[in-house]
């Protein structure tokens, strides 16, 4: 099993905190094919990463691993209002290149519930295009790497949900290169037992009047460990750019470990950036209110944990997928 250093913080900080990077264990490369359920208008074809010249400019050790080890690589193009569903295989390394040409719209929902897998998703949104990527990562070990280039007036929306993943690593780099380019993300996690999650979201804003908004919501139970690094990087020239990031974490056991690293890097005067974090326990007044309505305390904590992820689940926009997530987190009536 290969181990490499990933999720590097764009600018390192005190070593003793152990947040400057993470170690990813990558599966042995096997010939595992993903399963696609494609709507009309979406085209999927095999591609060769080298000869098709689709590797992004920002190469690192992890992207090199995917370039060298992916037996199956796919180019996804076209346009549709309906989502493309992708089932990520077990013990595989896959590469997806989603290219939305001007004025097109692509939604991809990726599901993984594998023992161990790794996959890279490269995004290219041409002017006025829209790409929505949903990743549902459950159980097992997984490494997800996303690299996105967003052109002028294009929109990239990311929804990621991590449910009881044994050890999940998610690295995302988004370059808002074009004027008025937009990135929105909703990230949710529900971790329990000895689950571990390491997220590194790096948003680089080069484009004038580019906008990013990140909303992270999570619940930690058992002895779960989570690190979230979120960076908004305003580059010189990104005048009029805006970036906002917020993480809201609910801690439900005394053995949990939460690390939050919300970074803003700014080399441009005319920007507005903000980040916020709220980390804590269930508000006693909420428990009191619900108890006064006859709900037992253990059920109350379940309801609050489920509702914490509600806004992220609703952002998926696909009723069937949303329903399956609600069922997975124990909601008694997902249609409620």
């Amino acid at each position, binding site marked *: 099993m290969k181990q490499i250093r990933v999720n590097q913080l764009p600018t*390192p900080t*005190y070593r003793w905190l152990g947040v400057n990077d993470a170690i990813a264990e990558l599966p042995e490369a096997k010939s595992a094919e993903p399963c696609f359920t494609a709507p009309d208008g979406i085209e999927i074809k095999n591609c060769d990463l080298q000869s098709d010249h689709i590797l992004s400019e920002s190469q690192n050790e992890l992207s090199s691993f995917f370039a060298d080890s992916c037996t199956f690589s796919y180019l996804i193009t076209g346009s549709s209002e309906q989502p493309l569903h992708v089932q990520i295989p077990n013990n595989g390394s896959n590469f997806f290149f989603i290219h939305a040409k001007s004025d097109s719209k692509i939604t991809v929902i990726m599901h993984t519930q594998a023992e161990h897998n790794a996959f890279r998703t490269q995004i290219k949104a041409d002017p006025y295009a829209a790409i929505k990527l949903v990743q549902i990562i459950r159980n097992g070990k997984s490494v997800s790497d996303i690299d996105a280039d967003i052109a002028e007036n294009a929109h990239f929306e990311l929804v990621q949900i991590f449910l009881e993943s044994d050890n999940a690593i998610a690295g995302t780099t988004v370059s808002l290169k074009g004027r008025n380019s937009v990135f929105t993300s909703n990230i949710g996690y529900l971790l329990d037992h000895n689950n571990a999650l390491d997220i590194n979201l790096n948003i680089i804003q080069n484009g004038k009047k580019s906008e990013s908004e990140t909303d992270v919501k999570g619940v930690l139970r058992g002895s779960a460990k989570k690190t979230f690094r979120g960076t908004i990087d305003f580059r010189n020239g990104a*005048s009029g750019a805006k970036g906002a990031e917020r993480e809201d974490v609910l801690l439900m056991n005394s053995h949990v470990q939460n690390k939050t690293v*919300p*970074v803003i890097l700014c080399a441009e005067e005319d920007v*507005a950036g*903000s980040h916020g974090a709220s*980390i804590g326990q269930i508000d006693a007044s909420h428990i009191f209110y619900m108890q006064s309505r006859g709900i037992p305390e253990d059920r109350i904590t379940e309801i609050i944990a489920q509702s914490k992820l509600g806004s992220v689940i609703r952002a998926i926009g696909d009723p069937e997928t949303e329903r399956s997530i609600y069922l997975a987190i124990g909601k008694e009536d997902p249609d409620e």
Partner: protein
Amino acid sequence: MKQKTQVDDIDRERYDFRFDEDPEAMLASGITPEIIEEISEEKGDPEWMRKFRLHALEIFARTEMPNWGPSIAGLDMSNIVTYIRPKSRMNTDWNDVPTEIKETFERLGIPQAERESLAGVGAQYDSELVYHNVRREVAESGVVYTDLESAMHDPRYAEMIRTHFMKIVPPTDHKFAALHGAVWSGGSFVYVPAGVHLEIPLQSYFRLNAKGAGQFEHTLIIVEDDAYLHFIEGCSAPKYYEAGLHAGCVELYVGKRATLRYSTIENWSKNMYNLNTKRAIVEEGGRIEWVSGSFGSHVSYLYPMSILSGKGAHAEFTGITFAGAGQNLDTGAKIVHAAPETTSHMDTKSISKSGGISTFRSAVTVQENAINSKSSVSCESLMLDGLSRSDTIPVMDIRTDQADIGHEAKIGRISDDAVFYLMSRGLDEQRARAMIVSGFADNVSKELPLEYAMEMNNLIRLEMTGTIG
């Protein structure tokens, strides 16, 4: 046509004057066992301190430079002179201080401040204290305020120094803590007995006059249970082309239900590398309050750390950093919640202009036993042009579910809406913008005694013209 707001750099005229160097003793540059032995001999160290210095030197040699933060590649340790003794022994009367040294401190306003608003003053020139005095009534209350070397040789305090010196900042902490342990010289020792409330502050002022030199003063303060102290630290140096180094160390012990306010106005010249380490340990119900203004230095690494070791202990950090041309100021704070019901609050502001780089870096850690702890962090950065940088790099490491942690940060430029509002109230645009920028620093100035708030406002002599682009 739009015109950029003009904000001047800090006026350093008052600090950049200098006198010719004429020390009584000056060791060779570099850091070797022989130099450490010479320093130890110069200072008449007890044997334990001589061994401590040599051990710290070994740690320094094997410890790596930090691999994060601003570059310190311009600092050549082999060129730094670590010990310079001025032509003056420590005095308790300004009239006994040699004329040029006395004039230095008069131009910095220290004797005047002592007369008007301080309970005691210590003044260090290069590697040694040249003046130390405390008001009689303060001394009679049992407060000890003296130089660290005298305390180390005084049988009444020697054991206290030995048991506290570099215990919360051990030489293994980082490379420059090890360097400090090897070459430290000067600094103050303050002891406030249990129950004593010192209503007016003590101040130590550190002046580095020699070029290509380092200053390594050690400040050790012990505030016993139920006592109160406000300690003010000031520092400056004239500008040279050679790099200078400040690697001081501050260790603060705050007893049960005691309060220590530690205020700093740092205005080193722009050739200085300010690699200072400050740390406090706070017992049950105690409070540490840091007030910090960082204006000088070429490069700064400065993050006062509070270890809340007793139940209900509290830490506050209020700071402002102003980074102008040629400056890379990496500042912030670290707080460790290591006991139940501890609380902390950080409120910081930073201003970057003319290519200056300002970084807010922080760490809040809540340990597993620190149940029912609360912490809030607020940081705000103002960018005054597109040449500069402003970064915020906070970390929160929370290891219990019974804690409430909040963090908010904002970055941006002067709000056009705020300018418009003030102009609608009759201010011209220039005054409106000046008021907004001055108000931005208000979090620190309102925490300082009036005289020092005025001094800080003078430091930020902001001149505003035209409208923002």
